[in-house]
């Protein structure tokens, strides 16, 4: 759970609106195959995160994704045998046979890597801004038990992580303790897993006492719907505009990119402008500073 309660429009909006906004951004990333546009989106997402006052997880995600992106590019170059512009001849490599690395395969690998990186950033931005409890409350309106199970599972995971940290501390602060070696780490892990059943047992008892097995139907939590805020409207409008821009860019040929057999790409400048427009439209609601206290 990386939710970070801040005062921004994204935090203040209802979870559905925020999720829709993030989904529209993801749609733009999916429909766009142009590397220049994707690069702009990847570079611009931390700016959106900064505007949402949660830059840290998004930047960490970007940093975390860079080595994987490189691996993706290299793997695609080695495994895909399409493209005509050979940049490296590796000769016969058993059991793969003759391997020629092409510029097109490398570029396509880069596109996939940029898409992955952008999707990861969007996911973490949404995780940091959407209150999981409010989200699960919404799920519980539709599927009460599923929503409650999700909420409990989300609580159980950090509780077990805390347990693990405490057990590690318990070993470290022995008089003959110290830094933990592999054996001690294994012991901590086995104790944490072993006691997870006790944790689950406790939670089950508490839930039963509070009426989980009740015979009466569960009340729809928060069925008294709150009115839409201007942040809700702004984010939904922004999401629709982003989605429209994304589809229009794709259908209008602004972000066309087909690497095989040789590069066939739309000019870079329109693609970059398209990506910048996506970021501007998506970022506009985040400029609001009034009424951004997340609801209680």
């Amino acid at each position, binding site marked *: *759970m990386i939710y970070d*309660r801040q005062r921004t429009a994204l935090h203040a909006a209802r979870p559905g609106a925020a999720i829709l906004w993030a989904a529209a951004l993801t749609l733009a990333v999916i429909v766009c195959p142009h590397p220049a546009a994707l690069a702009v989106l990847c570079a611009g997402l931390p700016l959106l995160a900064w505007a949402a006052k949660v830059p840290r997880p998004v930047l960490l995600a970007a940093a975390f994704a860079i080595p994987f992106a490189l691996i993706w590019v290299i793997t695609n170059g080695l495994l895909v045998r399409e493209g005509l512009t050979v940049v490296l001849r590796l000769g016969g490599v058993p059991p793969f046979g003759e391997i020629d690395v092409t510029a097109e395969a490398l570029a396509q690998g880069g596109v996939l890597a940029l898409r992955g990186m952008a999707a990861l950033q969007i996911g973490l931005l949404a995780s940091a801004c959407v209150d*999981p*409890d409010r989200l699960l*409350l919404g799920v519980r309106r539709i599927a009460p038990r599923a929503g409650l199970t999700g*909420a*409990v599972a*989300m*609580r159980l995971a*950090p*509780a077990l992580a*805390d347990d693990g940290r*405490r*057990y590690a*501390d*318990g*070993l*470290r*602060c*022995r*008089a*003959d*303790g110290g830094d933990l070696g592999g054996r001690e780490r294994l*012991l*901590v892990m*086995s*104790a944490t897993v*072993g006691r997870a059943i*006790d*944790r689950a*047992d*406790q*939670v*089950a*008892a*508490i*839930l*039963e*006492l*509070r*009426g*989980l*097995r*009740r015979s*009466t*139907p*569960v*009340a*729809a*939590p*928060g*069925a*008294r719907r709150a009115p839409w805020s201007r942040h809700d409207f702004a984010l939904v409008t922004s999401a629709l505009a982003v989605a429209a821009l994304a589809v229009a860019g794709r259908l209008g040929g602004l972000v066309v990119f087909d690497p095989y057999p040789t590069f066939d790409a739309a000019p870079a400048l329109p693609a970059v402008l398209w990506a910048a427009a996506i970021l501007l439209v998506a970022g506009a609601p985040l400029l609001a500073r009034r009424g951004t206290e*997340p609801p*209680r």
Partner: protein
Amino acid sequence: MTAAAATTARPGTLAPLIRARGLELAYGTGGPVIRGLDLEIGEGEFVVVAGASGSGKSTLLGALCGLVPHTTGGTLAGELTVGPCDLRTDGPDAFGRLCGWVGQDPEAQLVLGTPRGEIALGPQLRGQAPGAVARAVEEAALALHVHTLLDRQPRTLSGGEQQRVAIAAALAQHPRVLVLDEPTSQLDPVGGEELISLLRRLHEEWGMTVVLAEHRLERCLSAATRVIALDEGRIAFDGAPADFCAWSAIDAPALATGVSRLLAPHGLASAAVTVRDARAALASHELLPPEPGLGGDVARLPPEQAAGARPDGATARPGLRSRLFGRSTGADPAVAVRGGWRELRDGAVLLRGVDLEVEPGEAVALMGRNGAGKSTLLRALAGLDELERGKVERAGRIALLLQRPADHLLHERVADELWDGVDLAAAGLDRVPGLLARHPSALSGGERQRLAALVVAGRQRPAVLCLDEPTRGLDRAARALLATQLAALRAQGTATIVATHDPEFAAEIADRVVLLAGGEVLADAPAREVLAGGWAFATEVARVLRGAGGAITLEQGTALLAPPPPVEGAESPDPAC
């Protein structure tokens, strides 16, 4: 009033709400934990359940909520009903409609991501309308003073705050019976008294039936209308708090409060329910010693009880203050922290320039409210957390016993935690049957605490042993054994630093008390000076005697009072209990 005559609801209460007939409860293949219990509790009573560890308190409370045996397993004989719910046929869901339950470990009871969700869960699951749910959350949060915490993550709350949220979650369901198992065990003295006051208010204003188990009886007797003492699963006493004080002082000194035992030699134990009554009784018998400034001083104590002398015969060592004034023993400190400053990334400051020095063999108690910085200081001393500023000088290894002893016992068998040649007798564990083959969780709280202390201290004697709330959930006998274990370590030169909310334990083991507040040292002085001179952190004996003679322990208080007149039929209580 003894068990034979006392199984009915108290006069002045409504019809019996809780009724047990020949109730027997057992876990697994062991013998019954509750044996043939006959009991009636009327609606609107405030019942304190007393008893040593293993006497069956938690089992009885669990049964009142349907948790035992339905979720814990075990066997049931006889009958127990709470209102229309029958333990033979109904489980926790049915009992939960009438009973709110608050257990020993509040963190384990918080299952959702925020206190707001936690408090709302019960009413939601019971099908209440959204408006009613919102009102229940608001009312419970205001009653428990947790309305400012509603949107925080449970893990960021202190133990006391978690306890309040757990009680609010129980109250939001508007239970007719509130069952609490050692609810003050995590709280500082002030927090504990506030909680008891709140329960008293709920009881008096809402007419709620409260059933509460506690080891620290002195905190809750004044609020109770009835006390039930259990001994090996049977009712040993059932009566009014004043009668309990008189009974326990003679017949069950292990359960008696310090004031009961202080007054018992004078035949006044029944006046030990509140400090006010105790003082009035002493005054009426002209036994009350003059207060400090009114002629009372330490010189009135016998020489062996005078300042600096401790019950175990050890001599108090000079504190930092005395060393600063040139009366140091000259020994290098076992551990010293200078200008210790610890802060969190979000800006919270936990320690603000703390200075502390502890000599080899010295025992220091750290006291203060929840969140004062006690645990943070211990973690910094043990090297678990780094200080932002300042430094820690250590003469050797520092061991730290964390708040939950189970955090140190990670193996499946006790034997795997130990080593060849371990001295189990020093920890009072040599007579625990089948110890080595048992799982650590199968030990009693006291046994687990002593085992953890043994494991943490390790094969080689540490320079310093730190203990974080070591008496939490322990009865008096277990606390005495732990004190003996610590004394043995001190005798070998190990310094001990104990963070505690238990003034009686601090008085028993500490040479010196360091009082922390907001991450700063408020006082660093000999135990007698701190524990006799204040109110919130004074021992019970000191509160009754208002610091006269600097008496903080039962022995010192007894010595201070005039020689008791002979009381017919009264036996002298065993001060060692």
